[in-house]
């Protein structure tokens, strides 16, 4: 008999593990990331690699300091996913130290200072993005127009190294994002119609043929990745669907109310970090509510915050702030969105049978 010490069942388990989930998330992110590499060339690839590489180094260092088994935890893939999400939401031509600093903030402060995997209150990648955005507004808002390697405007490898090390002045067409130009234009008193004139190209947005962060461009690839994850039960539909639906509804309502100031739903859905956040960031299990009901409210709240920040606050893209705010609300949502216990009413009292007979 080779029975291990008595431990309650079940003795069977679904073929799921943290590691497998992380691998699938990375797999789902790959197409959009590859598209980003293609669109922004070597600088993007180098930035991506240095961000992920440094994240792994920080992860191992933190595990050593915390006295945990490095092999067990460093191989779970969570540090890579965090760094991946951070990297793809950085401006593709940002210098190397932005990636390294971001990884340090994400892994050391936002993850391990809270106690490591599963203990963090805020999404580490978004904490890093916000820290970088506030500290280095210039580097963090320098966006370029997509230019595939065969395009004459694309930098060669040597020039790319220059961009990567942040000391070469490569003459790229810097390109404000759609949300950015709407924001600045409206602030200057320009009418929305004039701003969008010639720039309103939903198909280009969906395909990713416009400037932005490394891999937030190709909405269609992100959407496919998200559907893949839902189909493989790595995550549930509640957050993406409620978030996107709520954002569309809010944007449409305001657009109907005053279309000289409020762009329509397509602008909000297919620009900025919307798709990336909907499927890959807001759905981070650690920092989002656990019950389906709570997840729906999380999505709605997130949409409202994103819309509010994009429209009325100082930043044209409010996704990272909105995510952090909703992360902070998550324990509260969890507290109030408990499922009803079988055989009890919502107040927790045993069901009454008087109604029968």
């Amino acid at each position: 008999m080779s029975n291990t010490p008595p431990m309650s069942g079940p003795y069977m388990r679904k073929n799921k593990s943290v590691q497998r989930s992380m691998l699938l998330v990375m797999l789902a992110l790959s197409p959009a990331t590859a598209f980003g590499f293609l669109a922004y060339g070597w600088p993007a690839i180098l930035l991506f690699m240095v961000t992920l590489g440094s994240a792994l180094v920080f992860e191992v260092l933190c595990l050593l300091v915390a006295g945990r088994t490095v092999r067990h935890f460093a191989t779970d893939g969570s540090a890579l996913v965090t760094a991946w999400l951070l990297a793809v939401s950085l401006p593709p031509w940002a210098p190397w130290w932005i990636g390294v600093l971001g990884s340090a903030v994400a892994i050391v402060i936002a993850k391990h200072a809270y106690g490591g995997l599963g203990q963090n209150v805020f999404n580490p990648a978004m904490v890093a993005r916000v820290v970088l955005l506030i500290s280095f507004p210039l580097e963090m808002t320098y966006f370029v127009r997509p230019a595939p390697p065969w395009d004459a405007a694309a930098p060669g490898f040597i020039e790319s190294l220059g961009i990567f090390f942040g000391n070469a002045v490569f003459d790229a067409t810097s390109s404000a994002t759609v949300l950015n130009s709407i924001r600045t234009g409206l602030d200057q008193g320009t009418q929305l119609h004039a701003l969008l004139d010639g720039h309103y190209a939903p198909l280009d947005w969906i395909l990713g043929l416009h400037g932005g962060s490394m891999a937030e461009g190709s909405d269609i690839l992100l959407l496919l990745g998200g559907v893949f994850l839902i189909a493989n039960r790595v995550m549930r539909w509640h957050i993406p669907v409620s978030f996107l639906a709520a954002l569309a509804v809010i944007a449409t309502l305001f657009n109907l109310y005053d279309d000289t100031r409020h762009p329509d739903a397509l602008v909000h859905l297919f620009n900025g970090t919307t798709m990336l956040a909907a499927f890959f960031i807001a759905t981070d299990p650690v920092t989002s509510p656990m019950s389906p009901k709570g997840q729906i409210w999380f999505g709605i709240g997130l949409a409202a915050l994103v819309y509010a920040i994009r429209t009325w606050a100082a930043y044209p893209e409010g996704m990272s702030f909105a995510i952090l705010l909703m992360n902070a609300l998550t324990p509260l949502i969890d507290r109030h969105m408990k499922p009803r216990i079988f055989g009890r009413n919502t107040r927790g009292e045993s069901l009454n049978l008087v109604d029968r007979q």
Partner: protein
Amino acid sequence: MPLFRFRGGAKVAGRKDLTSDRGIVTPPLPPVLHIPLQQHVGNPAVPAVRVGEHVVKGQLIADAKGTISAPVHAPTSGHVTRIGAHTAPHPSGLPVMTLSLEPDGKETWIRLPEPLDLQVATGAQIAQRVAEAGVVGMGGAAFPAAVKLNQGQRYRLDLLILNGAECEPYLTCDDRLMRERPEQLIAGIRIMMQALAVERAVIAVEDNKHISFTILREACAGDPGIDTVYVPARYPMGSSKHLVKAVTGREAPATGLTAEMGVIVHNVATAFAVYEAVALGKPLISRIVTVSGKALRRPENYDALIGTPVSWLVQQSGGLASEPRQVLMGGPMMGEPLPNLDVPITKGTTGVLFLEGTEVADKNVMPCIGCGSCVTVCPSGLLPLEMAKMLQHEDIDGADRIGLRDCISCGSCNYVCPSHIPLVQFFNYGKGRLRNQDQEKKQHERIKILTEQRRQRLEDGTATAPSTPGMNERNDGASER
């Protein structure tokens, strides 16, 4: 028939094909039978025979004690060689009083009591016959069946549900019973309906057992009161309250019984045992048990005598093909590890599993990542991860407040957890602590009452003796209140 949903539940890999096509086999007589005196919920039975005595098949060898108890009968004829402690089929490996019987190979039957005349038999008479035959719930719970058959006298019942869900993976004992003995099963159902005074019965079968369903549907076609229904193969469909919800849409109160809503649930194997007890006068001395798992050479369904050592059935199955990683009694979801192979088959044993490394859960535990899978899957609507966190910090009352007592230990949360956290282990620990707390509280109350009574007596200036028979009576009354 319309079906209803209950929240949660998991799609669990069935792995029933190992034995679902293996017909019921009667193994040869084992050299010795170990018959525990407690195979049921309630008081252990009291031996009615002595060591050395010769008994015949079906003879009463241990008497029920109290209302919640069940008698035990000799599974075959032979000599009682020993009455004493023997390892119980329980992970603790602790001994229970067990009667060992050496078969004489003659299988001489006792003169069975006359079958009940069902034209005139009352519900109480049927229940009494079932009680005398030692029939218990055969789905694994082993609650004395007669007690549940008497519910007709306490509640107004309108529906009997026969639990043929068999939602535990690997197990096919109920499936084979439904396929091979449908007439007897349905006769048993009719007897139960008569005892409970209900007009309607529904046999609920999970929709992965098409053959059983078709056979039963045909077998009960002529009976307007009995219906068959497919329920989705979703674990834990076999949990009685969840099955009632799925079939009727009625949700039993957390602190009450399904009988309060007019519904009573019995396992299909229990219906078969009731048929044998009432229509044939036979006591419960054997049961169908699935012996399966990839570490076993030839998985089978055996019609085994109660008390047959597990090792005997392994021998009949050609022995072990490999060293099993886990040996279990019951299914892999709620079953328990076996301390060794000497333990016997009891009335509540649905299966014995010999699982290979590839069949057993990965034990690589990671921190909780808060994915909420356990919350979605919990059929009781609980927050397993919250409860586990509280129990990890010994916050028993906190876990109690958020529903620890409503946990049915089905293990669905554990099954889906990507971090492989042993959630059920925490819950069982917590429930044990709660039981102790409750007991202590009861004891405190009792002491308070006694002290109060003593003070009263001293004030009245009457008897000061601490213990008189009259006082004991009074105390019992007080503690019951």
